[in-house]
């Protein structure tokens, strides 16, 4: 019963904070959005814990709530966006957004409804602990792992190039 309650609590927190990232009625400041994004990510990490994906919950907090959000806040503060806040949201954009979200909702609803319900029988709960995940990562998924490391290197070189004074 308690995990169920925790699920509903964390899900509500996730969706509420997600909504406040996108459309905060009180503040149009990007810093507020970033702060609510941190909260969204933290409650998502809570949902990961409920799903027993402990390693991913830790990575979520470390990488997303830590590194990525610091990067976001750093850039927001660097750009000095004081004058950017007050502009009306375009009606057309809001309308287009509403229509596409409704279309997506219908699509997902149909997909969930039509999908076969054959879940495997509830066995022992799957533990997403560091050990089992690491074993899989370094045996079966070794090549993608190495490719991702190269990708990170490429991204690092690209960022350094992009932040040079004159792009030559």
């Amino acid at each position: 019963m308690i995990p169920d309650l925790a699920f509903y609590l964390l899900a509500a927190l996730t969706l509420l904070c997600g909504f406040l990232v996108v459309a905060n009625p009180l503040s149009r400041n990007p810093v507020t959005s970033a702060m609510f994004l941190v909260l969204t990510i933290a409650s998502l990490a809570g949902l990961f814990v409920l799903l027993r994906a402990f390693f991913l919950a830790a990575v979520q907090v470390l990488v997303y709530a830590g590194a990525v959000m610091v990067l976001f806040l750093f850039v927001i503060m660097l750009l000095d966006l004081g004058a950017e806040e007050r502009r009306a949201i375009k009606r057309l954009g809001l309308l287009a957004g509403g229509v596409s979200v409704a279309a997506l909702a219908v699509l997902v609803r149909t997909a969930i409804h039509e999908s076969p319900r054959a879940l495997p029988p509830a066995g022992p709960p799957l533990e997403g602990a560091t050990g089992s995940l690491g074993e899989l990562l370094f045996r079966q998924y070794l090549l993608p792992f190495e490719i991702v490391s190269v990708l990170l290197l490429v991204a690092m070189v690209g960022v350094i190039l992009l932040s040079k004074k004159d792009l030559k």
Partner: protein
Amino acid sequence: MTGAHVGLEQYLVVSALLFSLGLLGVIARRNLLVIYMSLELMLNAANLALVACSSFHHNLAGQVLVFFIITVAAAEVAVGLALIVALYRLRPTTHVEDLTSLKL
């Protein structure tokens, strides 16, 4: 569905709602940085769906995929924000409607 034991369906519904919120942000908001945050929201919604499916199907491959998604998203954020800063040096705005030189 209400009051029932929390299953895969509930997680997928949360994930779909979160994805819709992200999509709404990308389309309706006009600040480049907020659009970027909404993109992160969509990625996180996909991650939640993958972890939920992996957990309920007793298959760890989904969690490995989420690990890769988080890594790639971090690289994407770094490059994207560097691009935004470079753009801001050229034209001091983060409002997408001020950046229309490629528009017909």
